[in-house]
């Protein structure tokens, strides 16, 4: 029953040990040992806490020093945007329950979607035909992704795993037969994404970690620790050297990670609630986030700070997912009040609000060539907008 008080150990480890031993002593009336442990835990915590608070404020000071102009000021000289007319061009019906996630194929017209009832469907969104369907052995399939080759899909959710299904063209073949189990977490899978090839998958989970996996062997290549709560979303950076990604979680933090070393290289904490979605600006120099606090925010990586907030007093429901138009000028947000809000990224104003879904919008992605964007909703449908 050794309680380690050295500052190098994390406070969670200490509280975990305490938890185990407290359970043993719950039944006894007097718990003196627990009192000592509690005092020790408290001292460690207090020290760590004050150190982290002072570092945090020093960091904020440093960041503020170089912030000499606001984004909307710089954007004053940019031309304003006209009225936008975007409509639903396709409605995909076929899921029997809430649609939770979707992803585009590189061919710019196919998509994969997953829902609460365990079904994963591959569609040719242009013709609205369903091409493949898989029933997962679990409900709440919260994550799905299309492989870059277009020959496989990955998905997972409450089964705590991420599985890869090669897309077979044999109508008689059961896709589930060739399923490959790749990732294993200790809590639900919240998001997954292939890297530049079919061979590696990046996952995020309710267990508070992200991980990089080798598809062929199922081997864990790298794990990423640093979030204090469930990680809900991730996005890979479109950079020349292609080695970083950003994640967002229930701890209100957005973390940027080095895929090689597993280290967190930048962290941003300005949201007031869970971050449900993160997406890189197309140049890779910034990223946007959407949160339950009903705001979207833009963070610049070189300035190392938040540079814009997209919010309106009349918007009171959380944002479930965000994505940029091809040029990065527009930011689309899917909201829990069933609407999509379109933002002018540079000027910070809302350009348009789109109605159509009959329940919350749970997922939103712009197509690879930027000709349209797709939304999935708890109303069981997906819509393509252009």
């Amino acid at each position, binding site marked *: 029953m050794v309680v380690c008080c050295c*500052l190098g150990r*994390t406070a*969670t480890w200490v*509280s975990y040990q305490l938890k185990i031993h*407290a*359970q043993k002593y719950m039944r006894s009336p007097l718990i003196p040992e*627990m009192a000592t442990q509690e005092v020790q835990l408290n001292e460690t*915590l207090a020290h*760590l*806490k004050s150190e*982290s608070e002072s*570092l945090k404020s020093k960091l904020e000071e440093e960041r503020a020093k*170089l*912030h*000499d*102009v606001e*984004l909307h000021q*710089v954007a004053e000289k940019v031309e304003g945007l006209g009225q936008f007319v*975007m409509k639903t061009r396709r409605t995909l019906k076929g899921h029997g329950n809430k649609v939770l996630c979707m992803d585009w194929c590189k061919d710019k017209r196919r998509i994969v979607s997953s829902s609460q009832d365990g079904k994963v469907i591959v569609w040719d969104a242009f*013709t609205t*035909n369903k091409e493949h369907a898989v029933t997962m052995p679990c409900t709440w399939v919260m994550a799905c992704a299309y492989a870059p*080759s*277009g020959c496989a899909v990955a998905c997972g959710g409450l089964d705590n795993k991420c599985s890869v299904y090669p897309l*077979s*063209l044999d109508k008689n073949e059961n896709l589930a037969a060739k399923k490959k189990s790749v990732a294993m977490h200790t809590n639900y899978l919240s998001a997954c994404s292939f890297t*530049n090839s079919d061979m590696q998958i990046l996952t995020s989970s*309710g267990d508070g970690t992200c991980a990089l996996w*080798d598809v*062929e062997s199922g081997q864990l*290549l790298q794990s990423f*620790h*640093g979030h*204090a709560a*469930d990680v809900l979303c991730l996005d890979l950076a479109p950079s*020349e*050297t292609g080695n970083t990604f950003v994640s967002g979680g*229930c701890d209100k933090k957005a973390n940027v990670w080095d895929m*090689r070393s597993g280290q*967190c290289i*930048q*962290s941003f904490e300005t949201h*007031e*609630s869970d971050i449900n979605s993160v997406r890189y600006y*197309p140049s890779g*120099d910034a990223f946007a986030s959407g949160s339950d606090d009903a705001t979207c925010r833009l963070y610049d990586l*070189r*300035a190392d700070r938040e*540079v814009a907030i997209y919010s*309106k007093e*009349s918007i*009171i429901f*959380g944002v479930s997912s965000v994505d940029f138009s091809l*040029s*990065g*000028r527009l930011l689309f947000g899917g909201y829990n009040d069933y*609407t999509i809000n379109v933002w002018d*990224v540079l000027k910070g104003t809302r350009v348009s609000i789109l109605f159509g879904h009959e329940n919350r919008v749970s997922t939103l992605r712009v197509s690879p*060539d*930027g*000709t349209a964007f797709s939304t999935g909703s708890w109303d069981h449908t997906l819509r393509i907008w252009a």
Partner: protein
Amino acid sequence: MYPLLSSGPATETLRMEKVIVAMQDPDMGMKMRNQRLLITVIPHAMTGKDIIDWLMQNYNINEEESLHLGGFLVQYGYIYPLKEPRCLVLRPDESPYRFQTPYFWTSTRWPVSELDYAIFLAKKNIRKQGELMEYEKERYSVLHKRINHTWDFVVMQAREQLRASKQRRKADRIVTECQEQAYWLINRPPVCPLSPFIETCRRALGRNRVKSSICLEGSYSEQYQNHDPIMQGCLPSNPWISDDTAHWTMNAALVPIPTRLRVERWSFSFMELLSDAMGRQEFMMYLEKEFSAENLCFWQACEEIRHGESSKIVEKVEEIYKNFLAPGAARWVNIDSKTMDKTLEGIKHPHRFVMDDAQMHIYFLMKKDSYPRYLKSDLYKSMLSKAIVPQETKKSVFPFVRRQRHSSPSPAQAAEDSRSKGPQAGSD
């Protein structure tokens, strides 16, 4: 985020309550009056139309959005209808509505455990003034802020429970206190792992930051505006709108003649050129003329290691060494001696990232040297001049006649076809 996994009142209810409080503001809030319901006169009521007008004015939104927002206020129970009380819908007319009393607000009903924890902390605070632990003090103030409008209730309950416990035997009281303490020790919200956070902070303090005026000056959006179909449309037409896939056919991976916009994009950045299959092909042709094609081949081979199967890493590294790095290699690449030494050392124990330094060296070499020259070359200029500018498809005379939407071979199909045709079949 998901109801089954959340641990607090949904954050939108708290923001909704802000709206409701603003609506009841004595100065800026809604003007309420008596509303007639059949023969009864109900005081402090308002009409559906009043609600919509107020929202439109105060939040600067149109009627559709106002109706949508107001609808949620009724659905969530903050405003209730006097006529047809079971139909929780906001009608944009003379239908009468009233505000719900705060006691019934959603945030006060949920979650029971947060209220209980607040009561527990209040009891501890009352019983032994200033004896709350650091983390308990923090939680106490967070809860105080969050469920402020029920704080009287919390304190009241705490006092009641303390009074009741005073009437028990001392031994039992101690037991209960310990059990409670233990319960909340286990069930209180987890402590944030601070040490890794501290390390991240320290590193962050040391990083180089760029002035905002420089970062935000970037004109990426402007440069790409003409290429953004949602903003500027696309030629000949947006397939999703016109049902015509010509745009996709013209911009397929490998075409005899590419479109002008596409060739223009190759000049935006080296990465744009390399990520387009045709662009890479053209660049390779140019490099061959310059006798430096081995650079691009080397870069591609390194990419295959970085993103390929783990099982093939060793053999691929050997191939690269043989073809590009060994003395007298057929396609020897010119890397500086320091990087070469480091890479050769690393090859002894090959791993996924062993080629990273060499790959980056060659990448930046091409970017700084060959790429700018390519853009000035006749090869590029002639490609640009013969590139197609598609004609915009005129809108159909009969807009209601929908074109037939043709299906396309799926990538999975294409992959299978090329597999069955054998190694001669080309792929991009």
